[in-house]
């Protein structure tokens, strides 16, 4: 399969994301933010960084880029899209994912290894929506992954959070004791209702090599690959 990794001015993690994609499955290429044509990729990663300097508001400018218009169409057609950190912020700004990311409770940027609980339990990724055997009860697989952000406190109104939980749209939660940014209901990542667009604040692309701390991030990319591999 072929991955496309978006590159905005100010992106930082696009090279790491490219590397993680190829480790997971297939080949990966960068997609310049001004390219309307995604080049027939099978999955899209919107990577971390500080697109357009995160000026105005994180992700607020990047969402208007030509490439993002195409990503919206790609997502609407069921294509798998993974947003990481700034990419998650961009997807929220673009309305492809619910909620918003606010300043950390500490009002400081923080970089630390965190533990996530993947929900649903039996699959990281579920195109077409949650499967019947999936539960969001803390029993899901644990992933140790670095997080690094200043604006990562997940927020959505209570009624939206209730709905996300009811529909199994909470993709990742911080394990007990690991919610360092004050996210509502420990939410670290969400997905859209269809299940093909997922965003999370921690960085799975920085957790693909035992030498740098963990390989748990590969599981996230492998799950996307499973969803994106052409039949």
């Amino acid at each position: 399969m072929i991955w496309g990794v978006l590159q905005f001015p100010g992106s930082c993690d696009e090279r790491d994301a490219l590397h993680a994609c190829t480790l997971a499955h297939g080949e990966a290429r960068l997609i310049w933010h001004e390219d309307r044509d995604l080049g027939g990729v099978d999955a899209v990663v919107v990577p971390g960084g500080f697109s357009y300097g995160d000026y105005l508001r994180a992700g607020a400018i990047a969402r208007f880029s030509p490439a993002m218009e195409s990503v919206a169409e790609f997502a609407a057609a069921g294509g798998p899209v993974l947003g990481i950190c700034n990419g998650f912020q961009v997807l929220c700004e673009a309305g492809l994912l619910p909620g918003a990311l606010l300043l950390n409770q500490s009002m400081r940027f923080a970089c630390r290894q965190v533990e996530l609980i993947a929900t649903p339990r039996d699959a990281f990724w579920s195109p077409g929506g949650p499967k019947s055997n999936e539960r969001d009860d803390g029993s899901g697989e644990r992933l140790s992954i670095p997080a690094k952000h200043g604006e990562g406190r997940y927020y959505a109104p209570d009624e939206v959070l209730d709905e996300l939980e009811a529909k199994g749209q909470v993709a990742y939660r911080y394990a007990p004791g690991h919610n360092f940014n004050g996210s509502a209901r420990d939410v670290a990542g969400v997905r859209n209702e269809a299940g093909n667009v997922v965003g999370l604040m921690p960085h799975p692309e920085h957790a693909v090599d035992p030498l740098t701390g963990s390989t748990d991030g590969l599981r996230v990319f492998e799950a996307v690959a499973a969803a994106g591999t052409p039949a």
Partner: protein
Amino acid sequence: MTVGTAKHRELGLTDSEFELIVEKMGREPNVVELAMFSLLWSEHCAYKHSRKLLKKLPTEGERVVMGPGENAGAVDVGSGYAVAFKVESHNHPSAVEPFQGAATGVGGILRDVFAIGARPIAILDSLRFGELDSVRSRHLLDGAVRGIGHYGNSIGVANVGGEIYFEEPYEHNCLVNAMCLGLAKTEDMVRAAAAGVGNAVVLMGASTGRDGIGGASVLASAELGDGDEAKRPTVQIGDPFEESKVLECCLELLAQGLLVSLQDLGAAGLTSSAAEMASAGGVGIDLDVAKVPLREADMEPFEIMVSESQERMLAVVEPARVAEVLAICEKWQTGSAEIGVVTDSGEIRILRGGEVVGEMPVEALVDGCPLYDLNPAEPEGWIYGNRATLATGIAAADELLALLAAPSIASKRWAFEQYDSVVGSRTVRRPESADAAVLQLPEAGNAIAVSIDGNGRRVACDPYAGTVEAVLECAQNLACVGAEPLGLTNCHNSGNPEKPATAWQLDRAVSALADACVALGVPVVGGNVSLYNEGPEGPIYPTPVVGMVGELPDPTRVAGSAFAKEGDAIALLGPFSPTLAGSELAKQRGELGKGLPQPDLAAVAAACAIVRDAVRAGKLASAHDVSDGGLACALAECAIGAGVGCRVDVQPLRDRGCSPEDALFGEGSGGFLVSGERVALEALGAVYLGEVGGTTIEIAAGDRSVVVGLGTAESAWRSLGAQAEHSGA
């Protein structure tokens, strides 16, 4: 237009320097010329009080790819790759406005590294503030840490290490030194020398505004004093987003071979960049200020020439390639303008449209500044204050806890968690997990290690011994992760060199640096000098900050500093005979004074080699050098990191003539605390101290024995955040 003689004094030139300029010009300089001379003849640019001393430093070695004189130094790391690195100060701006001062310090050192064609891969920083119980120090610490994070995080370069000390003499002159490392294919690297008469000079990046005007002369080369607020407009404002675009743009331009040479705009802006490029290439340059993109329309030519607006680069480009260069700048949405041409005149000519507004010989500008001899005189006693904060005669366990909680020794997690340490996927050892940061280089099939050190208090006690110790601490840190030193960069932070005591410190420190580098076989490939860190309250501690880069063949074989497992033996390796002289405990007791024992360079170097080889062979479960707070603090750090206690007896140090206090809290070079199998450790010549285990730190030391619960020790050691964010007076 001519200018009165008062103007040159305001700009920091002496009367005799002004007369020399008139002599070299054959006339009085006009405003533009005087402004440019004043900057290039400032201490910051001309090193007029330090250049003679710095000639002592060894700069050559087999692995040196670029040495001093380029934007950054570089060493060969094999497989056709080189690692570029440099440390630079941004002290005075940070003392005025810590957030922007520190942020632009990071921005400046990043540009130095990508100016030679290397992609920045790591940042380290070395910070000094007054004691943390001062409101001012907490303000400066908070601002500087936020500023470093703001810039480095946004641009996506991992911040992998550093150090912070809190000492009274830095209260009014904080130090912010930033180091950057970059990776380049050796064949793709570029120098700063302008070449090719008729080639175009292209200015890239941000537009030019009034920020930072006069920064080099007014801020960086005079003592801070009353009226600092009025200097705020001379502090530059950083824009990491702009830098990110310029960085990617420059690397793309270099990868396509479109640039003849490249130089960043730092202190003294266009003036120094153009003059240094011309000087290095033995050519002249004509610049038209009317072509410089401006933030404010009505800027005067001299303002344009001396502006220190950030995120700008100057390139020399063959005329036929200019259009391609401008197109790539356009792609990266960064500014670009062809503003000049390389000439054979040997002069820097400044034009505004068709009008010549300044015309100076390059040689006079860059090399014409007189170099001054220092008048060193050794001060008789301890010239700094030292208030006691710890009573004498308290239990050794309480002393240990006081030392662990001392901001200079306590864990710096509060600070480094505000920095992205993982971006780039190279960070094999994150901050605090090992004595040196380790970065893998999959391109070259190996890894590098880097450490930055410099304990100013000990240099104040004895500038020679203290500086040797700084170099040795770096070497010991590298040895602990199995790395062999390749090169070194340094920043000499000091007081006013025109004062005899400071001159003596500077002279002794540079001599020590030279001797230590020669003894270890480590060349100095670049650096920086920051003088005049002094106010009415007196000078800072002389603070040579040393950044050392080493190579290790196999990143899978790197020892951590924390103990590995219960039951492992703990041993002490190396020629370590600590004393309380210049130690953190002596400071807290108010007992600081002149003099330190002289370290045995050859013996420490030999111990480094033993540790390095043992780490590479996998014989050590952990390795940690004994540093601030002595053996007791080193033991506590190893235990806290592991979450398991230890039981040791310091008798081997008693056998070397140490008192129980010396053994517990004494400091000095040459000590490695290692753990592993007892037989293997003893085979290396290490002396057995005890073993890993339990939930307490137990140190038998005669009548000064220590027993402290691991949790209690950890609470003290992790208290920096609470102290830093404490809001009371």
